[in-house]
């Protein structure tokens, strides 16, 4: 590890510390329907949307109606996207003359984008028309992100309202999230990316002669507009197959920095917004602190193992030490311009959050580096996490932690003055367990299916890691992959699509139910008998529960995947 590498972490984390409070305050106002500095510009548009769609933004919804509206919105969006992809050749903006997307892939892709996963079983430049990219995929980048944020805000309302029946209005939350948060930031950020050299055009693909005289096709397209929301909405679906490793998506260190920071901005700010809504910002900072600690730990593991490189190569005399002229370490699958630290940091952030954008190939990481990325996803992507999804995933773990801690102090567990009772535990347990079931069940199925195994580029433990990563990524709505797995087959397209759906909605529904149940409860005043949930002790407990729950669930599988691979590598064998 180098000082420069650690500084990169510091720059991201420092910026987060600076932005969390102002952005969180702004978001709190936006979702409260208060006036902000953008209101003069946007509120006429907002009102016009409500009028056009017949929505009364002040009409409150109970959790069932909120969830139903959300599902309806998502399903309709998914169906439209599927149809658009199947008929993209007729819809214009298709200079490359691409044909329709095959049914299985179209289904997989539609589910992938509506769930904010952006798993890509296709390569963008060879499959998607500009129209599909812009009106289909980029639309879902906005919509699915706004849905996630809406759920988080509804959950916050549930936890902080007392004796209430409603969680807010889904349509208003959706519109406000898009209009006041995602669109303005992306307008500015997109232009900034263009300034860095990210392309934005509708030109046909260009054929160029390389220096060595070979002919190469350079794909073109409206990239910057899609790139910024891909990061800011923690979507992760790249315009090109190479994602953020592609120079047209991520040309400079500055664009790389913005890409990483943009992933964490909203998830971090949500913690502060939560604190504001709870009337005690320390509650938000406690969640923030837990996320930060896990973020740092994950980064250090990835960075350490990637910088250490492959001991077998070192044994053969390869120089893997970092110096002024080379980054050293395991450079397989990494861009030379990003080096080890920036690749490790990007990989940590993209798997902490459910983003899935990559600037290096996770499949080529050392076993332990890849394990850390995979484990980040298995934690439920609660380290800041996906926009909204990270927060509501973490709140489930908070509930479990509070429950255990509450029992240990001899009181019915309380969080923010709300008693955590059997019904709440049921929802929290469901929300935590179902994703694990889906990951383990589908991965086991794939591992036993000879035809599925033909998709694997690597045998042995690494092949198992690829399968585990694929389903963890799908269920966690991450979207990044161990690319050795060819997922564009009937089996993987379908099972992964279902994994994404279950991983999205089987958390959202229980968590909304939990919020609905808590909203209806009275708030008990805090006393010396209620343990405080903003102390370092609680943060440590929350982090322990997060790690132990995921660790106990996934350690056996990991032991046969990356852990076995690591141990076997040390004895001289690679896969």
């Amino acid at each position: 590890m180098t000082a420069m590498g650690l500084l990169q972490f510091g720059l991201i984390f420092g910026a987060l510390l600076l932005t969390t409070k102002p952005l969180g305050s702004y978001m709190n106002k936006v979702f409260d329907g208060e006036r902000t500095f953008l209101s003069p510009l946007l509120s006429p548009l907002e009102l016009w949307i409500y009028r056009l769609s017949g929505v009364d933004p002040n009409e409150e919804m109970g959790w069932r109606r909120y969830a139903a509206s959300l599902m309806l919105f998502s399903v309709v969006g998914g169906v439209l996207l599927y149809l658009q992809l199947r008929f993209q050749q007729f819809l214009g903006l298709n200079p490359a003359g691409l044909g329709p997307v095959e049914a299985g892939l179209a289904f997989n892709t539609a589910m992938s984008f509506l769930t904010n996963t952006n798993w890509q079983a296709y390569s963008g430049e060879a499959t998607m028309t500009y129209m599909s990219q812009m009106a289909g995929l980029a639309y879902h980048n906005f919509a699915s992100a706004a849905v996630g944020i809406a759920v988080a805000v509804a959950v916050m309302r549930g936890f902080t309202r007392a004796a209430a029946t409603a969680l807010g209005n889904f349509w208003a939350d959706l519109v406000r999230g898009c209009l006041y948060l995602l669109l303005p930031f992306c307008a500015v950020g997109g232009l900034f990316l263009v300034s860095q050299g990210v392309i934005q055009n509708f030109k046909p693909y260009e054929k160029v002669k390389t220096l060595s005289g070979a002919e190469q096709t350079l794909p073109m397209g409206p990239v910057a507009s899609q790139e910024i929301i891909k990061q800011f909405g923690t979507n992760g679906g790249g315009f090109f197959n190479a994602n953020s490793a592609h120079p047209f998506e991520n040309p400079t260190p500055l664009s790389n920095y913005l890409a990483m920071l943009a992933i964490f901005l909203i998830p971090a700010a949500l913690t502060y917004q939560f604190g504001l809504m709870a009337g005690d910002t320390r509650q938000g900072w406690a969640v923030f602190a837990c996320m930060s600690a896990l973020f740092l730990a994950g980064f250090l593991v990835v960075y350490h193992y990637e910088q250490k490189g492959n001991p077998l190569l070192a044994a053969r005399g390869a120089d893997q030490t970092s110096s002024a002229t080379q980054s050293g370490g395991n450079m397989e699958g990494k861009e030379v311009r990003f080096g080890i630290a920036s690749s490790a940091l990007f990989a940590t952030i993209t798997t902490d959050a459910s983003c899935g954008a990559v600037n290096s190939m996770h499949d080529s990481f050392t076993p332990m580096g890849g394990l850390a990325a995979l484990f980040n996803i298995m934690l439920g992507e609660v380290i800041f996490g996906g926009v909204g999804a990270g927060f509501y995933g973490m709140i489930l773990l908070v509930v479990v932690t509070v429950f255990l801690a509450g029992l240990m102090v001899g009181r019915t567990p309380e969080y923010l003055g709300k008693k955590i009772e059997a019904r709440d535990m049921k929802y929290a347990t469901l929300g935590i367990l179902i994703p694990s079931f889906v990951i383990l069940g589908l991965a086991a199925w794939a591992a036993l299916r000879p035809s599925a195994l033909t998709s694997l580029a690597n045998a042995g433990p690494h092949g198992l890691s690829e399968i585990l990563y694929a389903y963890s990524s799908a269920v966690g709505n991450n979207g990044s992959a161990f690319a050795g797995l060819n997922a564009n087959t009937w089996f993987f397209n379908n099972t992964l699509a279902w994994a994404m759906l279950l991983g999205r909605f089987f958390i959202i529904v229980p968590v909304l139910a939990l919020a609905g149940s808590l909203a209806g409860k009275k708030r008990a005043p805090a006393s010396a008998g209620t343990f405080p949930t903003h102390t370092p002790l609680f943060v440590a407990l929350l982090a322990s529960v997060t790690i132990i729950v995921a660790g106990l669930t996934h350690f056996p599988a990991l032991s046969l995947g990356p852990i076995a691979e690591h141990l076997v590598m040390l004895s001289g064998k690679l896969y």
Partner: protein
Amino acid sequence: MEQSLKRRKVAALWRGPIVRTAVADSIKKLDPRSLAKNPVMFVVEVGSFVTTWFWVRGLRAGSPDAGFAGHITLWLWFTVLFANFAEAMAEGRGKAQAEALRRTKTETAAKRLDDMGRIESVGAAALRKGDVVLAEAGDIIPADGEIVEGIASVDESAVTGESAPVIRESGGDRSSVTGGTKVNSDWIKIRVTANPGEGFIDKMIALVEGARRQKTPNEIALNILLAGLTLVFLAVLMSLQAFAVYSGGAVPIVTLVALLVCLIPTTIGGLLSAIGIAGIDRLMQSNVLAMSGRAVEAAGDVDCLLLDKTGTITLGNRMAVEFVPAPGVAVEELALDAQLSSLSDETPEGRSIVVLAKSFVPKPTGIGERRMIFVPFTAQTRLSGVDLGPVSIRKGAVDAVLKLVDHMPPALTQAVERIAKSGGTPLAVARDGQARGVIHLKDVVKGGIRLRFEQLRAMGIRTVMITGDNALTAAAIAAESGVDDFLAQATPEKKLSLIRLEQAKGRLVAMVGDGTNDAPSLAQADVGVAMNTGTTAAKEAGNMVDLDSNPTKLIEIVEVGKQLLMTRGALTTFSVANDVSKYFAIIPAMFMGLFPEMAALNVMRLHSPHSAILASVIFNALIIVALIPLALRGVKYRAWGAHAVLRYNSLVYGVGGLVAPFVGIKLIDMGLVAVGLG
């Protein structure tokens, strides 16, 4: 004020007959139908059946692994038995008590009175609500009821364990009698208030036997979490087999089952119901009868205690502490008058006046010569005293005495005010229409009560003193005792509205009461403890009955409630933390065949795969037995703030639970090697 501090003899934990019955019961409880109520242990039992089958099959085939399967099978069955044993032990103590109670319920004959007042002899089982029965000296009272006529001394030792008889009489707050208790003297007519089988003793028997034991809310919530964990581990193990097949070698089913049992939370799963039963039982030991486990649990959550001043915060009685003579009257003269007027006063206050007066006039002179006519206290005059021939001496409430005297010296008026302000009660003394002085009666705050309140405050519990005194007096006593707040001139309505107010703020309120007028408050409070001496209405409104009728008990009840939850939380944390070490024992043991490099994960350096797995299973079984005493006794309760308790318990049961099995499994592994089972 009845205050029997004598407790029923605490049943010793490991008493021979209880253990013997428990051993038998733990085998009976193997019935899958009864185990199905406990998902965790049910899974262990199914696993035991599976390994048994593989063991038998292995034996028939002469497989070399049959011995290993046999050992695993044996310990899996032990795991189930140990959990059953824990529950049976907890129930055993209750059953022993129930037996003792049942003996009092031998068929009693009742003297039922018909409309004409004629006595008709019927069995107690034939009595119905509303019947009126007669109970005379020596009779067992046939059913719960309320005295409609008469007064009697009743031996309630069958219920309370207290041998001193108590007075029960019609009207007032001491009119209820319990079926199964015995009339010692006199007679009473009782209106039956409970049908046979629904009486107080029946309820007690049902409760201590656990027959109607419902799961408490927190227990249900915890069960959900435990069931969830069990399901996850089932999924983990099933998928693990698939991954093992992918990796080149299926894991033997026996090993898989062993790992499953080690991972699912058997420690807490096995002890959960024992903890609950033991909690109610601990309350029983301190002579408190909880009508439901829910009430016990709610007691742990209480944020606000309403405590009666008299008997809880202060000793039951006021004591004379000072004589303030009127100008021109010597203090000895006043003391003599006070003493004379109190000689026949049998109230504790009266006696304390005599005691205090003795320090001024050790031997009252000139009593013997004159005839003394004592004038008892009546509610109308609010005076008592004595007539010595022509001399009349009276003492009583200041305003009552004022009517007797021509003139109250200003010095005395000031003294009266001073005494009232300090929280005391002034009594005036008059002799032949002349004010002689004032006696200062003072409430004596119980020793140690201030410390108790400080502990409660640290636990986050607010204490509110309820008193009929005026605000001035109440404030003084509140300040002296360290209580957080007080309700002066309390009426039942005021109490009720105070409870509602606290509850509206989201607080849980506990209170003690005995009178019928307390019934609404008892019903409204989250934890209402009725005194056993109280009325039937009060007892029915509350959700606990204190057989000792000792209002201080409320504090103990809160502690038992907290202890109950803490024990569950601590053991759950311990159980889950244990899993980490089991992974490090079993996972390398499972896969060292596939990947010899996995030996690096064998951080405990266990001897062989078989010894590692067996040691984990044995540890998992033995830890249940080792923790039975803790489950029955409860985690030690400490009057600390929540933060301190959480830190302490997280360290002991969380970190301890992480470390302990590493040591335990290693030791068992060494033992297995020593006896040649490695």
